[in-house]
């Protein structure tokens, strides 16, 4: 098989694996912080139990996030030596500062987990806050490097050489703010909805003591509140992200929407399959003028289509589907969280009906799917460029061979770890049910 394709597959699957644990690492630390603060305000020990249990789960996830992150970090140099040669000259700063964020997170995580019994209440909140800060900062910094790949700035190419490097211009490239905010808010969404899923799942059981029921209701409520706020923000900011594409990466937007002809009054195509032969999206729903309006703020706005670009620079057209899935999930979760919260506050005494709980159980997996499709869309939508307009993926890739063998090896590793990690979590929480901890709390 083609070595570049193998490198893309190996790297893409490694990232797809890392991102599961990394995103939850960012999202769940926020939830732990919220639980610790709520406990301090409400003086309700249920929140203390929550923080403790979530930390347990988080510690396991972090234990996979760190080695898998080490893998992707080193793999960048192994698989994309051409890319790293430019990164080192132009956008090394966020990678470097990220190390300090890792240190911060790792050190305070050890303190919070291994020394919890020796810390005062306020010191505990300070340590989790620093863990959350460290996790979010790592997401922000790595996303900076990713944003730079979309809108590379801060250097000139003279005769094929990288010259006149301006590191800060690279760091503050035009797409960094929207992209960073989008990644952070969706990571918080994912953390919140995964916890909401678990709480909803537990509440569907019939045999629950009153205190367990109260415990899970509280967990569901705070996760839905965080989830709803973050979903609302994500929708607003996702729109800004699309406008960023309109301005800086028109070919990616065109592929995302399956738009072939440059036009004003461009329609928004939802689902369907872009067909290059016919030059339109087949089988989808079209909303006339909507794309022009979303991208430029007016139906008169001209949106560039794929036909404006040479076909060799088109990304694969399936990114249209990935994009639709992400946006669809965004709006579903927005509706779901606000709906459930509405019910909860209008009928404070009533339990949520089973069918709402059942739908809520899907929210966590959906959020994770949103993260995966979003990233694959973003990275694949940039093809055939690794650094947009500067370096092609084929120029970035290694020429060392052996990739098929390594691909098989790493996939085996990831599958094994996914299974083992789920088992470990299941065993742990199965043997330490919350009922036991709630009983211990009362004595």
């Amino acid at each position, binding site marked *: 098989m083609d070595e570049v394709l193998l490198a893309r597959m190996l790297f893409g699957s490694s990232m797809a694996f890392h991102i599961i644990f990394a995103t939850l690492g960012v999202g769940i630390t926020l939830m732990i912080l919220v639980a610790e603060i709520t406990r301090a305000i409400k003086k309700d020990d249920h929140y203390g139990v929550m923080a403790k249990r979530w930390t347990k789960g988080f510690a396991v996830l972090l234990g996979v996030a760190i080695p898998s992150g080490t893998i992707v970090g080193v793999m960048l140099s192994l698989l994309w030596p051409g890319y790293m040669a430019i990164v080192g000259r132009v956008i090394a700063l966020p990678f470097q500062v990220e190390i300090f964020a890792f240190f*911060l997170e790792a050190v305070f995580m050890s303190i919070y987990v291994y020394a919890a019994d020796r810390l005062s209440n306020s010191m505990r909140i300070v340590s989790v806050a620093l863990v959350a800060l460290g996790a979010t900062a790592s997401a922000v910094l790595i996303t900076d490097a990713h944003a730079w790949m979309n809108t590379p700035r801060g250097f000139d190419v003279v005769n094929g050489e990288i010259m006149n490097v301006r590191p800060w211009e690279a760091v503050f490239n035009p797409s960094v703010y929207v992209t960073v905010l989008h990644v952070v808010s969706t990571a918080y969404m994912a953390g919140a909805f995964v916890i909401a899923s678990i709480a909803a799942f537990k509440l569907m059981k019939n045999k629950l003591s009153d205190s367990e029921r109260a415990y899970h209701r509280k967990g569901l409520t705070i996760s839905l509140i965080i989830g709803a706020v973050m979903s609302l923000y994500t929708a607003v900011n996702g729109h800004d992200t699309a406008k960023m594409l309109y301005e800086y990466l028109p070919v990616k937007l065109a592929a995302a929407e399956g738009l072939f002809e440059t036009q004003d009054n461009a329609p928004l195509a939802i689902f369907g399959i872009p067909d290059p032969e016919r030059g339109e999206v087949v089988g989808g729903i079209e909303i006339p003028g909507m794309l022009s309006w979303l991208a430029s703020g007016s139906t008169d706005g001209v949106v560039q289509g794929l036909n404006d670009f040479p076909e060799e620079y088109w990304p694969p057209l399936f990114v249209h589907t990935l994009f639709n899935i992400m946006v669809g999930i965004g709006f579903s979760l927005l509706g779901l969280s606000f709906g459930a919260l509405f019910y909860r506050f209008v009928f404070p005494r009533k339990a949520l009906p089973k069918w709402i709980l059942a739908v809520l159980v899907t929210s966590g997996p959906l959020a994770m799917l949103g993260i995966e499709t979003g990233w694959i869309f973003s990275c694949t939508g940039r093809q055939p460029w690794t650094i947009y307009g500067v370096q092609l993926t084929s120029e970035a890739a290694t020429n060392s061979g052996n990739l098929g063998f390594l691909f098989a090896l790493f996939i085996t590793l990831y599958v094994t770890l996914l299974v083992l990690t789920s088992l470990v979590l299941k065993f742990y929480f199965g043997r330490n049910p919350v009922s036991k901890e709630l009983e211990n709390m009362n004595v």
Partner: protein
Amino acid sequence: MTDPYIAITIIWAFLFVYAIAGSIDFGAGFWAMYYTRKENTEASVIANRYLSPSWEVTNVFLVLLVVALVGFFPGAASYLGTLMILPFSFVLILLTIRGTFMVYAYSSKKYSRMLTIISGTTGLFIPALLVATLPIAIGGFVSIGEGRDYLLFNEIFASPTLYTHIGFGLSTELFLASLLLSDYSREAQNEKTYLVYRKNALWLGPVTLLFAVAATFTLLPEAGWMVENMMNVWYLFAFSLLAFIIGYAALFIPSGKENPGRPRLSVIFIVIQFGLASLGYGFSHMPYILYPDLTIQDAFTDPTMFRWLLVGYGVGLAILVPAFVVFWRLFMKDKRYLQAEK
């Protein structure tokens, strides 16, 4: 000193810290495995207790090293990345298995037996693989050009210097780990375990020295240029030997405790010894990163980037040092942790 030399010195410093921290970490894993099968389970418990909070921090040093190399010497990172894809991929896989099992065992006792075996065996394989890259970087065991860059595995495996380097790496690792664990047991007031690790250190010290000499001699036919450079900085190696003798002797000094030896002093001098020797090795390596194809000047980053990276490291360290002090106090000094029952 020119910019590339400042940069390579910083890389050396990170490499040095990782070599020490990693040796102790991986070595502790090995000893924990070795002693679960013996009566001496306390020695295993002590090794494990040291390991739990420290592996994450050690891992960050590895990442730091990679990131620093990419930032300071992008040319070297891409070059080494291409050539070393196989050994580094194996290291990554082993590190991942080790790291995840560390956490699994923490959550479920079921896994602790398996963990001890995994962290023990990976504790030998990972350092061996890492050390094996050293002779590759100086021996010219590579084929460059014609569309594909790769390692000449047949020649590498046929070369004795590979094996003496691996032997040197492993004995150093176990020696350092024994020393540190003997100090750690003394700190935990566990004299019985102290004696176990002291005994290990006593025989590993001379073995390490022998391997060091052997590694240098087997280097001669492969990399005469480097041995010549080593002669020029002979004083570094002489001081290093002196530090070794003092550190080793410290294991016999009366301590005022039940048993002789001052492990703290010993650790300090052996680390100094290691520092001097690796500095000498590093100097002799200059100006090549990969002989004879790549020098530090060729691989150096953009000068503006270099300056900002320096600023970044300065600011980052200023923030991190206080965090480390807290960490150290909580885990290495706090009697409640060191002597905890479990």
